């Protein structure tokens, strides 16, 4: 397996995530798509550190930190969604347009 194949998988994941982020109307589905994009970044980091001739552990540690960040981000986002749902009774982004100028 070459580094390129990892990058290819990551690019596919990123594309799928981006499509979901733009296409889905539910906040939860958008969050899932966002997590996919984040996973793609983690794969890139791990793959590219080996390419840079560095000790692979550096990329692995960064990826581990990313996992932690992603978990924290998901927790915050989900609690925001719950709060939004309580206030607006919907998590459809098209309905949530109070910031319209």
């Amino acid at each position, binding site marked *: 397996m070459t580094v390129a194949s990892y990058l290819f998988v990551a690019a596919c994941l990123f594309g799928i995530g*981006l499509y979901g*982020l*733009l*296409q889905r109307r539910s906040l939860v589905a*958008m969050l899932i798509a966002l997590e996919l994009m984040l996973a793609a970044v983690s794969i890139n980091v791990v793959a590219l550190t080996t390419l840079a001739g560095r*000790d692979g*552990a550096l990329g692995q*540690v960064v990826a581990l930190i990313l996992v932690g960040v992603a978990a924290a981000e998901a927790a915050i986002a989900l609690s925001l969604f719950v709060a939004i749902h309580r206030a607006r009774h919907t998590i459809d*982004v*098209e309905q*949530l*347009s*109070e*910031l*319209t*100028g």
Partner: protein
Amino acid sequence: MSGPVLAAVLAQAAPLAACLTILIGLRERPRAAAGLATLSLVVALGATAYLVVVVAVPDVHWVAQTTWLPVADGPALAFGVFFDPLAATMSFVVAFITLAVMVYSLGYMAGDPGFARYFGFLALFAWAMLGLVLASNLLQVLVFWELVGLASFLLIGFWFEQSAPAAAARKAFLMTRVGDVGFLLGVLLLVRALGNATISDVVAAAGPAGVFSPRFTTTVALLLLMGVIGKSAQGPLFTWLPDAMEGPTPVSALLHSATMVAAGVFLVARLHGFFAAAPEVMRGLLWLALATALATATMAMVAEDIKRVLAYSTISQLGYMLMALAAGSVTAGFFHLTTHAGFKALLFMAAGIFIHHAHSNDMRVIATKQPRSQRAGVIGLVSGSLALAGVIPFSGYFSKEAVLATLGQHAGTAALALAYLGAGLTAYYTFRMVWLTIPVGAVGAVGAEGAVGKVHYEPSGGDRAMAASVLVLSALTLVLGYLGGWLAARLGHEGVEHGPFAFGAGPLVALALVAAGIALAWVEFGRRGAARAGFAERVPALRAFFGDNWYLDRLYGATLVRWGTALSRAARWHDHTVLDGASDGVASGTVWGGRILARVQAGYVQAYVAVAISLIAALGVWLVRRGGLQ
């Protein structure tokens, strides 16, 4: 993995699995929770028994480690299990006492609304303690050390809806944390010096052929001892333990015998090779433990609450264990820990039977409620007290004799004489407790001001489980004393080389002092028509001084706690005014800016995302065209 290693893992995994299952899934099913927790401890007991058999030969030990998160130029932190005769025996004691406490709790806690949660916490406690005992690395020890503290916090504050248990739990947590700071620093220093903190490496590096300078060893030993002092309730940090009596009585039985307070003593025994390389520290520990043992013995002489008497006696006996370790004998110290675990758990369980019966912790109240009707309680209290006082042939006699013999050989006459005095005081306050609780003749009712009782929730039967545990442990007080030779053959002979029945001058002196203590207690409390007030209680100043923890809590309240509170107030002001002010300013600025910028917004999140990503992509393309980011 080989069989013994598998058994060591299983001994930890079973209580952990039970704990998680109960706390997640069985909160509403108390009977299933209790059954599962007890079953997990039976498994752990079997596994640890196997460990004891495996290491039945001296100088054998098992290690199985795996490196956690290997990084090329970082520390190689090896985690795993390590056990030798000391750790194997200790793990068996932990599993046995926890199981006995669980069986007892089936009766004592029956009907409590938090029954399932209680058993979940007990399993957590067992897991944390077994993990600590079997850990191969000091960092791992640190993790379990804190988990033991957490489990104690949860169990002491089990009735958290009342204010006293909640405050006691907080106090226990914070006071032990003071010592744990030192422990953490010590472990970090070791990791920095060695690149890891594997127990065997640490011990090897401190010896005469090791790489540590004496100064480094002394520093680290002092820091680690801070943790030990906090955990094992010694020196200035012991006042949390009497307050920890606010927890359910079986929790006290567990906390005071094989877990929590024993963790500190066990750590000193485990790292004895390391501590022995810092002889000045050990001498300091000897005197600190001796002072603690004597001071708390005086406190036990005036306490009215049966559980507080037992709590002070625990601190005092922990002092004896640490004295033996400081004087150089692992066997004597650990022997005393083992016998003490048995008889102190027994004493608390027996006290629990009386508390259940009389609905009060006050010995004078219990005495008025026909304590003799509680057969199992009487048997347990008397046999446990005989062991605690050190009456031949009960278990405490043999182990205390081993401790005193060690002191006689290595610690000098002054320390030995004071330790003898402590043994006499122990016998006195122990039998004061016995005769105050179970009076020989009839006693009148006590006034309301004499009652320090606490209202226990209405019990609902289950006396058989309680009696069974008490009777088994009572029988053990007659047996455990003969384990000394067995332990010595595995841990080394210092201190017990004369065997349990060697009558020299030493044992005779100790027995004479014990007899004198008991006789004094008989004159003051036992005989018909006794005044039922001790010599210390008749002097108001002494009574107040002893009964108030030598005013240590007041000293802390007037100094450390006040300073801490002032610091917290300042921090709160900073938080409210500076930090919140800044974030409020940012928030109102954002709202204000948003009002202006809202005019360009369409309101559709995904449209923004699309625009943002297109711009980023365009930026990326432009940067690559330009030739990188230089």
